[in-house]
């Protein structure tokens, strides 16, 4: 059977794809710094996504309230901690962490968030992309320490994804394998 998307998924997915496209990372590689294969470039991509997600949660907060707002603020706080962690890992490898963009630049790429449902659909899609990105990084990062950090942050993102789904009135777990099977 052909996979189908709900309208909500399609809207959230398109918006998140725009955010990803705005993350940066498309410039030429630096001439100095960590050698290819060190994992620094991959960590830089994860960091660019984290910067965009932090900005996205700030936009979401404008239409959220009550317990939903409290929970998304807690999530955004953890995303900011991930930014700091990734910046440290990149510096440890001899690299320069990519800076984030301005709030206005990110805002131009975000969908219009009119109500809580819009914000939660957007947040769910971003969290799904983050979980997938960290799991893919697990397969590619060359060093055990870097993979451990990716697994730890990926676990946080999985909690965020489940929490956002619950806040949106959906089951926390979508299935036994979130992005693939053994």
């Amino acid at each position, binding site marked *: 059977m052909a996979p189908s998307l709900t309208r909500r998924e399609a809207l959230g997915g398109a918006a998140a794809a725009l955010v990803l496209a705005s993350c940066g990372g498309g410039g030429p590689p630096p001439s100095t710094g960590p050698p290819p294969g060190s994992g620094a470039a991959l960590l830089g991509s994860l960091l660019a996504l984290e910067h965009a997600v932090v900005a996205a949660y700030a936009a979401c907060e404008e239409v959220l309230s009550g*317990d939903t707002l*409290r*929970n998304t603020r*807690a*999530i955004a706080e*953890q995303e900011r901690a991930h930014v700091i962690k990734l910046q440290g890992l990149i510096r440890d490898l001899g690299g320069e962490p990519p800076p984030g963009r301005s709030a206005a630049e990110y805002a131009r790429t975000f969908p219009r968030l009119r109500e809580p449902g819009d914000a939660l659909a957007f947040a769910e899609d971003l969290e799904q992309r983050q*979980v997938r990105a*960290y*799991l*893919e990084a*697990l*397969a590619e990062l060359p060093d*055990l320490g870097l*993979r*451990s950090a*990716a*697994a*730890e942050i*990926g*676990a946080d*993102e*999985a*909690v*965020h*994804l*489940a*929490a956002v*789904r*619950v*806040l949106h009135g959906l*089951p*926390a*777990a*979508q*299935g*036994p*394998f*979130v*992005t*693939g*099977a*053994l």
Partner: protein
Amino acid sequence: MAERSDVDLLEDLLARENRLLSAYEAALRREAIDVALGETLRDHEQEHARALEEALRHTGRRSPRASVPSHELTAALRSRASFARYAVDLEAKALASYAEAAAAIRNPRLRQPLGSIMACEAAHEVALRESLGDRSLVD
């Protein structure tokens, strides 16, 4: 700490899955969990255990035997709230084990799938917190 082999890591994860599976089966029998939630979590753990057994079969190892129910489980089955708290703790330990294994396992083809189960255990933890009426879903 000595490095653990892939087989050791997989066996440890399978033992954790079997513990979770036994816990949800017992909770369903004793009505210590909402039926729909309990069946979903049990079915997910069954799928995880099946996948791990399959991965272990490829290594030529036999699956570890089931363990007897613990004192803690028996005590936790007295109420839905106590079982949910017990299960949150089990899921948190499973989550930590999967995070460790997904990073440490030598076979790179197993890292992403183990991470995918890790993400499911994280969702279980959130679902159980929700069942407890916990308004804070994120630690």
